[in-house]
């Protein structure tokens, strides 16, 4: 089973070194998003790269609309991959959606993770009584409707917004991977993302986390980073990146790589 899964999700292990490092990409991208960062780590880590099942680079046949209704199935995938690779300890870098997955995976298998690095993470995107997640439910409905009505226009509007910083190459790259996803899958996954709420379970995380937050992120307000720090169960730090946007690994790979390396060595 392991090999089929590894093949289906394009799992790659790159680099040399003793320790494992998982780089997990977020929604709308695939593992290629790490290419600017990867070379900084391959000399020191065995870097595990994989695609989420919803990524455009994975055969859409594998996306089971009945199974991937909650994040837990994605967590299953991650843990299955790590088990198949016989990884017993690893550091985990997760972006956005994958940050959520990392949180849940570390709850389920705390012994597996030495450290979580959460980039642009949010336990919940919707606002609540005493929680500011950045989105109102009405807004989300509108966004999802826009997605359904005209995927094309939505991507074109969303990509620059998400990238934030004025880096045309990054926008192009993000648009590319976003377009690679089958629209219905995109829609389905974004629904399940907006539908999820990790706030109640953050305390169950015992692994120490480092939260990376850019100065301005359309999807994640800065208050969320503080919220995460205060509520995650382990020893946590917030690291502010001096750049803008939700995708620092595309817009400022050099900066992120150095910060990551420092965070990992701590």
């Amino acid at each position, binding site marked *: 089973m392991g090999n089929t899964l590894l093949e289906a999700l394009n799992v790659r292990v790159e680099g040399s070194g003793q320790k494992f490092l998982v780089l997990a990409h977020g929604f709308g991208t695939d593992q290629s998003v790490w290419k600017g960062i990867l070379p900084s780590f391959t000399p020191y880590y065995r870097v595990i790269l994989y695609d989420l099942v919803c990524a455009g680079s994975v055969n859409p046949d594998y996306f089971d609309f*009945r199974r991937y209704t909650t994040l*837990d199935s994605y967590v299953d995938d991650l843990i299955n991959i790590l088990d198949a690779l016989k990884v017993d300890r690893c550091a985990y870098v997760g972006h956005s959606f994958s940050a959520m997955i990392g949180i849940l995976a570390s709850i389920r298998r705390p012994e597996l993770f030495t450290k979580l690095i959460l980039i642009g993470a949010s336990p919940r995107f919707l606002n609540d009584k005493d929680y500011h997640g950045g989105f109102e439910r009405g807004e989300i409905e509108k966004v999802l409707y826009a997605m359904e009505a005209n995927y094309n226009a939505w991507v074109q509007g969303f990509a620059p917004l998400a990238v934030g910083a004025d880096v045309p190459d990054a926008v192009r790259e993000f648009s590319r991977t976003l377009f690679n996803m089958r629209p*219905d899958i995109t*829609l389905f996954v974004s629904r399940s993302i907006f539908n999820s709420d990790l706030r*109640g*379970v953050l*305390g169950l995380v015992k692994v120490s986390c480092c939260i990376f937050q850019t100065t301005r992120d359309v999807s994640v307000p800065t208050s969320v980073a503080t919220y995460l720090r205060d509520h995650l169960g382990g020893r946590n730090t917030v690291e502010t990146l001096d750049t803008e946007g939700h995708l620092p690994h595309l817009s400022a790979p050099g900066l992120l790589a150095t910060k990551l390396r*420092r965070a990992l060595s701590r």
Partner: protein
Amino acid sequence: MPTPVSAARQCLTEEAARVLDDAVAVARRRSHAQTTSLHAISALLALPSALRDACARARSGAYSPRLQFRALELSVGVSLDRLPSSSRALEEPPVSNSLMAAIKRSQANQRRHPESCHLHHQIIQGQQQTTSLLKVELKHLILSILDDPIVSRVLGEAGFRSCDIKIAIIQPPVTRFSRTRFPPIFLCNLTDSDPVQRSFSLEVSGDENSRRIAQVLLKKTGKNPLLVGTCAIDALRSFTECINKGKGSSLPAELAGLSVSSAENDISEFVNGGGSEDKLGLKFKELGSAAEQCSGPGIVVNFGDLKALIEESVSGVAVSFVVSQLTRLLELHGEKLWLMGAAGTNETYSKLLGRFPSIEKDWDLHPLPITSVPFNDGFCSKSSLMGSFVPFGGFFSTTSDFRIPLSRTNQSFTRCKLCTEKYEQEAALIQKGGSTSSVADQYSESLPSWLRMAELDAEKLVDVAKTTDDPEALNAKILRLQKKWNDICWQIHQVQPKLDISHARFQVPSAEDFLLSANRKEGSSKDSSVIKSQHANPSSSMPTDFQKVFPFEQDIQIPVASAAENRNFQSELLDKVSKSQQIEMKSPWFARYPTPNLSLPPDCASSSPVTSVTTDLGLGTLYASASQEPDSSKISGDKECLQNFSGSVSAEVDAVSESTSHQVAPSSSCSGPNMGGQSDIRDFKSLRRFLAEKVCWQDEAICSISKAISCCRAGNGRHRGSSLRGDIWLTFLGPDKVGKKRIASALAELMFGTKESLISVDLGFQDRVYQSNMIFGHNEFGCSGTNFRGKTVIDYIAGELRKKPHSVVFLQNVDKADNLAQRSLSQAIRTGKFADSYGREISINNTVIVMASMITKGDRTFLSSKEPKQFPEEIILKARRYQMQILMECIAGDSDRSNGMNVRVTPRKGFLNPKSVNKRRLTETRDSMVQGEIFEMPKRAHKLSRSYLDLNLPVDDLEDIDYGDCDSDSISENSEAWLEELFDQVDENVDFKSFNFDALAGKIVKDISLKCQRSLGTKVVLEIDYEAMVQMLAAAWLSDRNRAVEEWVEQVLCRSLAEARQKYHLTAQSALKLVTCEGTFVEEQAPGACLPARINLN
């Protein structure tokens, strides 16, 4: 961002491209700005097509087909009307992103299911063809277009369901094939090790949470789920409902018949003081007996929200009672009884744990994070999309339906006339039993190499078949031939004719040779004549020089058989070569530059070396005479083609090249030194003269640079393997940033004609922040950090190299290279190919790569800091474009007049005032790591020169220097090792001296003094502030002309001094001070120097 139609068309098969054209026509008619999926649908519906056919079969029976089609056309029309029309009509409205994405998706899908594609695709894939040649078939295109939400909505409006249509498209109308449907391959199928999961995922409808709860219930320990999370309460309720409503069938078999009893209300009533202990005890007893009596696996006791137990209002005693009761219940009936509850947040649970530390063990709890509400909550289920896609997951894998019989493919495929003719000829030949290798062989030469290899394979097959002479084999042969010709025809006449021509052009000369010698050693004159005639065609479009080369080649090929003859010929040829060499010697030295071109990959060079020599010589003259950009770039592109090609062919002809290589080697190697000896001196001298004109103070460095370059170009340079490499690698080590840069740009000018051919990149740019108005700032100094924001450095370099392959690449601060750049550079110096971060390689055969670093090779210390200097380079590098002004003040005595000069420079502030130094250090430590090419020098140099305070670095801040590059020591050591290795491989390591600023300062002061005396008289003292002096030095250093600062002194300073004299009444006691105005920057710059055009008077 939309894609041009032509680009999109290239991804499509002919049939699909026709549909695209129709769609474009629709868009044009409606003067829409883009061609979208809707246009494609409209085009597809207009004609009897697969889509229309599928719709007809997929429609629901409720309406008459005519009516429903009418409705569909209407709704498509209406949606098209809604699209905004563009102001100006476009000839070809470009393909919108969504449609392009659909094309890309179908391409990917086809790649995943190669068995469903046409036969020729298989062959292509077998040869590792790039994806761009994978043509999307109409069927796949339609399927992807149907994925577009907007399309499925339009279809939905007309009463069609896009999933039905898809099924109809996939399943052919005629039921010839058995409709075997494999179960969809979901990931869950793959996870075999987990039986629960598998049996579930195919049955449970939607609710992931329930599945996971059931999973916990099945466990041996920790079997009692405690749902944690904001949505936990909802999930708990949903699970309870699900079980009690008798949907238990969705549970795994072991749990069938499970029931849930809720004790939630009783508990909350009790803890709030509403009931007695007896009542609750009774309830629990009931539950216990229910568990015992139940026939199924047991019951789940739902104790509800934990919040009820920890609220302030409840009494602690009551809660303790509940907990102990539940614990006892579990102890008694543990086999058949589960507990289940929920907690809104982890905090609730922790509070309970705080009160009852053993509860987790007693209750055997398993905290289960719940992160989303059950999916059928209304939030999501409305989506029509979802439903429509669910049954669809696995259909693409039903391969049997896709397979189209081989013969049919061939029949339906129409060859062009030419290919058909050839095919017929060959078929006739086969039937006669004659040789099969003739026409196709030659013809296939014009195919891209990868394809040709396939052909050769096919040929072999045919040959094998030939041995058995029965009619069946003959048929097979003919079939294969047919297929082959189809492919050839397809490749050549219908697809990308341009590309093929370019390939053909270069394959002809060398490929022919290989085949000649390998297959037909007899080398009959007939064969070569055939080839000659073939040459004539493609070469008509070639530069004339190339054509001249061909005869040579023919000549060589024939005598290959006899070695003696061959040698004769070679010597003859050598004569010719040296003759042409001499002719060229007369032309300016740079005419000879292209000799590096000799270095074709080994295989090619060895099999036809003489040819390549002449080719390059020919090219050489071309360079010299025509400095026009387009010409040269075209040739270099072509040459790359040739190289690529030869690489790919090499495998085939290994044997041949081996046999020829030793004959050939002498020719190239003996020609090298010969002409080298001659050109060396000329080259060297002119190079040296030219460089020395630009940078007069680096004699030794220039000398070794000139030597290295002329040596490399004379062919004595780098031999990688047997071949000669065209790329020249130099390192410029040591101080004098400006000198290095200027020499690099002079090299660019000299070797490639313009200064534009300098690609200057600062590898340390990431650590650097240039403040505005620094003299050695951004653009002036080519620290083009801004140019490649968002790109990696090597991608930037690769991009520039692609634009101008003939150039000097100047890499500053090479010691700061990141891992990516390090790897790429090491690879480049080894292989002669520069790879970008995507792994695409560019030949650097015509490139000079100069790597500059402040470190020196030997001792790795900073030369300039060995002795204290008044004006060290680091200070100069930090000079800013300040405005200057002249102040007047009185001085007490005239003790300051020394050396008979009335101009002096104030010492640096740091020397006088330690306090201010400290203040400055704060800012400067930051600067200094950021600044200049100072690698790890600040630290080391500082250790050396601590007593001098030379670097303006405070002692106690030493540690801080490293914080900029947070790399651990191992990393920097690593890069040190890398540097050393790299430096060992380059052609020449050139050490630079530091620029003697002190001497220059002396000269300038003297000059000013002279002029000052002339305009002010001998009595007035002019004091030049240290900063002002630094600024002047910087300007002098940076300026192209030798006398720039002197001119400035003459024109600006003297004028201002004269003005000052008029304004102030100068006495012997008065002193003028030239200072910089910190904070105000130069507004108007003096011509030729970075100095103010005016000096303010106070």
